């Protein structure tokens, strides 16, 4: 009984300058949405740059995307992130039901999926390092040779290299590839840190007696990381 009362006090706890816990929660949610808007603008210039160079070096970008990015791996990663979005929803739902342990379990599942995403990215990155597909001065791929090598698969895709202007802007494609996926990957890592911290708090049983706003907000952040990937994936792998 006493512990129930203590729990009730914890649940209605709020900072002095708010009227009640619901008020504080509304403010926190609103703040998070603004932060997410700001995050989207952080990626804005990268997508702008991609749009510009994709327009300037259309054929090169199309060629490199088709031949040197594995759309299968991209798809796998998309699915992985979508599932992780689901598990984070489960965590939020468990937090609303005050099942702190289940919050922890769902968050661990999310973190594992995020780790899987990074492992796939790791293999994609190392593969590109080997092929010399690095941006700027580190770009060592012999494009003419490369095109000749992929003649067969290009034909299968219905592309005719003879009619394409492949060459200029090649290193630019990989500059943008590494910048966009790198910045996104950084967000994944930060997200894993935040979710990990939430998981620790969950296993301590905090969300059984405290309001679930932190879980909800970290979940929102994770959804954004997922959402940005939803734009990165077609832009880089499919266009």
């Amino acid at each position, binding site marked *: 009984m006493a512990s129930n009362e203590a729990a009730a006090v914890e649940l209605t706890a709020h900072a*002095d*300058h708010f009227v009640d816990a619901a008020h504080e929660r509304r*403010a926190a949610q609103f703040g998070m949405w603004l932060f997410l808007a700001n995050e989207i*603008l952080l990626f*804005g210039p990268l997508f*702008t*740059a991609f749009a510009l*160079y994709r327009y300037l070096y259309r054929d090169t970008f199309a060629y490199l995307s088709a031949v040197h990015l594995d759309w299968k791996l991209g798809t796998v990663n998309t699915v992985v992130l979508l599932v992780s979005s689901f598990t984070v929803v489960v965590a939020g739902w468990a937090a609303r039901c005050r099942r702190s342990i289940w919050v922890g379990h769902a968050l661990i599942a999310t973190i594992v999926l995020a780790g899987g995403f990074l492992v796939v990215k790791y293999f994609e990155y190392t593969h590109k390092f080997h092929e010399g597909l690095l*941006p700027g001065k580190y770009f060592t791929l012999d494009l003419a040779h490369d095109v000749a090598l992929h003649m067969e698969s290009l034909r299968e895709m219905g592309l005719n290299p003879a009619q394409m202007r492949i060459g200029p802007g090649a290193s630019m494609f990989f500059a943008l590839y590494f910048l966009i996926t790198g910045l996104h990957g950084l967000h994944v890592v930060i997200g894993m840190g935040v979710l990990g911290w939430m998981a620790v708090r969950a296993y301590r049983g905090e969300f059984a007696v405290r309001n679930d706003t932190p879980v909800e907000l970290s979940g929102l952040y994770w959804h954004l990381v997922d959402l940005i990937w939803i734009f990165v994936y077609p832009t880089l792998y499919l266009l």
Partner: protein
Amino acid sequence: MSPAESAHFPRWHFFNQTTGVMSWLTTLDHKRIALMYFGAVVSALILGGLLALGIRLELFNPEPSLVDAQTYNRLFTLHGMVMVFLFMVPAIPAVFGNFFLPMMLGAKDVAFPRLNLASFYIYVTGALFTLWAIVHGGVDTGWTFYVPYSTTSVVAVAPVMLGIFIVGLSSILTGLNFIVTTHTLRAPGLNWGRLPLFVWNLYGTSIISVLATPVIGIVALLVAAEIIFGFGLFDPARGGDPVLFQHLFWFYSHPVVYVMVLPAMGVVSEVFATFCRRQIFGYKMLAVATLGIALVGFFVWGHHLFVAGQSTFDAGIFGVLSMLVGVFTAIKVFNWVMTLYKGAVDFTVPFALACFFLYFLIFGGMTGIALAVISLDVHWHDTYYVVAHFHFVMVGSVMMAFLAAVHYWFPKMFGRMYSERVALSAVAFIFIGFNLTFVPQFLLGNMGMPRRYHQYLPMFQSLNVASTMGAFILGLGMFLSLFALLWALKWGAVAGDNPFHSRGYEWNTASPPVQHNFHTPQVIVDGPHNYEGPPAAQPTAKVAHGVE
């Protein structure tokens, strides 16, 4: 004004309710955070000002005298970056916004006090890091760090980019905090139609901070990545486009002009209302114009690219949109002037400064309209005309509003009154000095003197001498003003709760306020600055408030 009329200094207030250095360094009180910002931005102002004096000294003579070309480039880079990123952007929002936004909303604090303190420390970290990086790296790119110069220069530009990113993060967090505070912490009865105009302007500013600052952040990181890894993103030799940098840079750096000017407009609206004894004429139009400027400001960046190879069609659109900002600004100017008309004007230091603000805004703004005309811009581009224009509109008006805010709210913040006579003469020096500095620069620019050179043709000397003398008069006025205020801090007469008899909400408490701002929960029954009828019930500050 006779502040002494039976005024008493309250026993308990936010300065003495908790004491010790740690109580300041770890404070969550928005007022204390505001005062810490105050110290930081004034330090930046003094540093930037001294650098400006150094630049003017060098330009006293046509031939190189004090410093060589390289040092001169570093001087104006440091001056520009300190003034723009460390002083002008945070000056009014971080100091007076932090202090008065919650008080104007009848709230106890901002929505996220911890985040507020964090953004202060992020600012300090970013500021110190940027200063170190500029000085240590000898950065000479100018505050605009245009590519390809910044990416090929032998000096270390990359760390500065990181510093700018950090400072930007701080202004994002402050903006976010202000928006949420305005939405969620308004006192009962304080609907949007009753918000003080200072709040409206902070709101517009915050939107720009949150939406534009991430762009400059990532651009700074891209430049850093370009330098470190040689990505070639802006390098034509690798297929990159330097003009892309200019687009992205100005997508932030034009709206940031409004991050500086909107809060200034807010201050001036409060000052005019108080000293004309009436609510601002056309309150709603002013609020709408504020949001209009914030919105249109996002779509005018191209006026910086008229000579950068932008298509004529784009240039035309950007030119017309830029003039639209002038329309919104003109609406504001007309409303302020209408407020003055038949207002019961009380000529005080803040009022004088607000009038100076109008002067700089009008002339700075009109020279801006002239610059938005493509054919004229081609002639004036990168001359002293542009330098004079943005110093008039950004520095002139923002500095006047900053000083107006200082003098208007000083008694509220510190509970003491400065010497009106000394302050007024300081302000006169500042105004005269400012004009003497920059009016000659308009003329020089029109005669064709380019900016950013440490020497010039002998024919330009007389005007440059005038400009340098003006700068020193301006500096003299600034220091006089500083000393008058520092003196008042200790020995000024006790101001009383409301020496200006203002009916802004923030005056509805003791001076200086208590820790949670008000002795009683605020309920708003009327718009701000309603000077008809008897004043709203004043707080009974005699009640000693315990330490919380």
